[in-house]
């Protein structure tokens, strides 16, 4: 396969940052089809249009996801990428894998694919870029039999669930994210591998409100760790921070001299609800007003820790901006216990209520967050059998009309109009 002239792509090698163009040129020495990737991309830069065709019927037997068909619309000019399918592998929870495992996956991909990878995709998958249709089944066989690794989700399926490091490495984990992520991955194998829904559906699990996997922005079903009692305060450690004995933010911003730690300017005044204050040299918190922004815990991790009654908040309906712009997930279940002893039955019940409703009323290619926007949060909460709380309200109502449900009005909506006119006739 010949090299192509790529003057536009070559510009991307000139900055101080690593360049995928350089990587592709290096890889092309072993896998000549990578020259054709560069050639086709150069053509796309010139034409200002993609030259990948959209979708296909490729997959492995029994699976309706995990492989994304990609074909060139200029295969005569770039035969090396005539087929260039993407394979998504389900990553281990928290992306805990050994270097040996990564080498095995890379070796397998050198054997069956272009050798190009994308780690990690938005749902955390190990993404393998570029193979041909005849290679798919042999790759899948080796992957599942030799590497004990499965495909991830794609299409109108449950996408590969993803979680943060959780309690494995983080003191703020309010539940075992890895356990929940792995358990639900196993529980919902059918939904991951075969299409079930009007559109994609993503689970993400964060152990605390720092939300390191961006569950609230990127998942249809975000499980974010929280606590329902009081933030634990070590007053001696608070004094230690004030005296400069401990570095704030655990040293995370220590590359510059910020001056002496100022608890008022750096913590109290930055609390979004103003629920913290000092009484003498003691820190006080009105926990009922805490919105779990995590700022104070992040600044003074020795002094402040999450409460002991731990669980999670479930938020529903985040999405990227295909329709109506991007949206964050809406807080739906304020607090739920994450209980491995029940095999997470409480969480599963919430998930399946959402799915039953969305599968019924969701339109084709409509994310659940869009369905909620279209039909309305009050209906969604009713379906979920959740009593609204003030935190469900985005802003005070500006519409002056009051909409009652019929069963909330004495006598319902039926009335004797003739009788009404007798009393109210002008």
């Amino acid at each position, binding site marked *: 396969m010949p090299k192509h002239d790529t003057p536009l792509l070559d510009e991307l090698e000139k900055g101080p940052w690593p360049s995928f163009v350089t990587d592709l040129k290096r890889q092309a020495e072993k896998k000549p089809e990578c020259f054709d990737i560069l050639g086709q991309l150069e053509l796309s830069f010139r034409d200002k249009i993609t030259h990948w065709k959209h*979708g*296909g019927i490729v997959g492995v037997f029994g699976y309706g996801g995990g492989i994304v*068909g990609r*074909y060139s619309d200029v295969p005569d000019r770039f035969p090396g990428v005539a087929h260039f399918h993407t394979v998504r592998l389900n990553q281990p929870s928290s992306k805990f894998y050994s270097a040996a495992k990564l080498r095995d996956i890379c070796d397998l991909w050198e054997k069956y694919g272009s050798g190009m990878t994308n780690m990690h995709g938005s749902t955390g998958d190990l993404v393998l870029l570029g193979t041909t249709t005849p290679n798919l089944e042999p790759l899948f066989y080796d992957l599942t039999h030799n590497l004990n690794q499965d495909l991830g989700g794609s*299409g109108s*399926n449950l996408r590969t669930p993803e979680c943060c490091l959780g309690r494995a490495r983080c003191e703020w984990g309010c539940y075992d994210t890895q356990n929940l992520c792995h358990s639900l991955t196993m529980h919902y194998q059918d939904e991951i591998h075969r299409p079930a829904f*009007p559109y994609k559906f993503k689970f993400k699990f964060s152990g605390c409100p720092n939300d390191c996997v961006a569950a609230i922005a990127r998942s249809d079903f975000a499980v974010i760790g929280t606590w329902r009692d009081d933030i634990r305060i070590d007053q001696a450690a608070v004094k230690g921070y004030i005296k400069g004995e401990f570095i704030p933010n655990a040293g995370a911003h220590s590359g510059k001299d910020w001056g002496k730690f100022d608890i008022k300017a750096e913590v109290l005044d930055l609390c979004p609800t103003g629920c913290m204050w000092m009484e003498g040299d003691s820190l006080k918190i009105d926990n009922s007003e805490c919105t779990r922004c995590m700022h104070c815990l992040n600044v003074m991790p020795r002094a402040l820790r999450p409460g002991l009654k731990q669980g999670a908040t479930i938020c529903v309906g985040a999405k990227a901006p295909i329709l109506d712009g991007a949206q964050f997930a809406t807080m739906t279940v304020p607090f739920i216990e994450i209980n491995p002893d029940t095999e997470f039955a409480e969480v599963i019940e919430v998930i399946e209520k959402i799915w039953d409703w969305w*599968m019924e009323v969701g*339109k*084709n290619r409509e994310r659940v967050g869009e369905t909620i926007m279209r039909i309305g949060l009050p209906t969604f909460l009713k379906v979920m059998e959740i009593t609204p709380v003030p935190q469900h309200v985005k802003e005070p109502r500006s519409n002056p009309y009051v909409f009652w449900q019929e069963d909330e009005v004495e006598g319902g909506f039926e009335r004797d109009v003739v009788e009404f006119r007798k009393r109210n006739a002008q």
Partner: protein
Amino acid sequence: MALSKDELKAKILEKALTGPKAQLYVKDFYACDPEAGPRDVKNAANDLVKEGKMTFWSSGSTTMYAAQGRAKDEENR
């Protein structure tokens, strides 16, 4: 569910084979048995794929169903 699973599968396949659209969303099959739940319809359609009578077509973000031979097959175009 008013229809048995086999009856539902037959209706789905008929729609996939004879409908004006070659590729259908799973929701398009709900009308095959209005009394069946979405999961029943989805399971029946997926069974037909396993049996080789239908196939998935996926853009990567959305999946559609088609009777064997009716889906847009980029490989053979």
